């Protein structure tokens, strides 16, 4: 029963992250939203693994955590090397 409440909290967190990704005034704001969205999805997959009783889903969470880190680092490198040329002042 408490696990379904947990699913609801995590889905609300996903919606708040999507709001920041859609609204964020600059590119780094959207990247912060995407990073948190990946972390929340890792938690959601772990909760689903507990609900369904399948251990194999934890491997999916491992791979997603790896790829989310690589994506955030790639975005940060892109922004630092001049990914926002309209902001040169």
């Amino acid at each position, binding site marked *: 029963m*408490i*696990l379904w*409440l*947990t699913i609801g*909290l*995590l889905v*609300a*967190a*996903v919606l*708040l*992250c999507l*709001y*920041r990704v859609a609204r964020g005034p*600059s*590119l*780094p*704001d959207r*990247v*912060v*939203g995407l*990073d*948190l969205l990946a*972390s*929340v999805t*890792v*938690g959601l997959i*772990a*909760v689903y*693994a*507990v609900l369904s009783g399948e*251990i194999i889903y*934890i*491997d999916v*969470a*491992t791979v997603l*955590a*790896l790829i989310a*880190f690589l994506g*955030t*680092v790639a*975005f*940060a*490198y892109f*922004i*630092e090397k001049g*990914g*926002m040329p309209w*902001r*040169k*002042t």
Partner: protein
Amino acid sequence: MAQDLSAWLIFFGALFMFIAALGVARMPDLFTRMHSSTKSATLGVGLIMLGAAFHFGEIGMTMRVIAIIVFVFLTAPVAAHMLGRAAYFAGVPLWEGTLSDALRGHYDRRTHRLISDEKVEENFPEGDIAV
């Protein structure tokens, strides 16, 4: 007993993640948003994974959970630091209520090198200091 413990661990992890998402949606500034998201999301992932390990109670599952927790605790600060540094160079505006910016004038804008000198403004010609 172990089932109750795992359920409460997962619930508090999800609560921390919800608080992190609330901060990301409500904070006024990029850096305050990053402050909200990084720490709480790391703690939330750790608590949820611990709860899953208590729920299954197998040695293979526990090893995978420990690997994920160590990986997240290592990589989340690195990713947040790289993103915050890149955003500071890109000139993302601070919140208008910010009291002090300790990095102001201490970065060489061309080489992206940090100089912690008192007279840093004399070391660079006009326009080379990131503000």
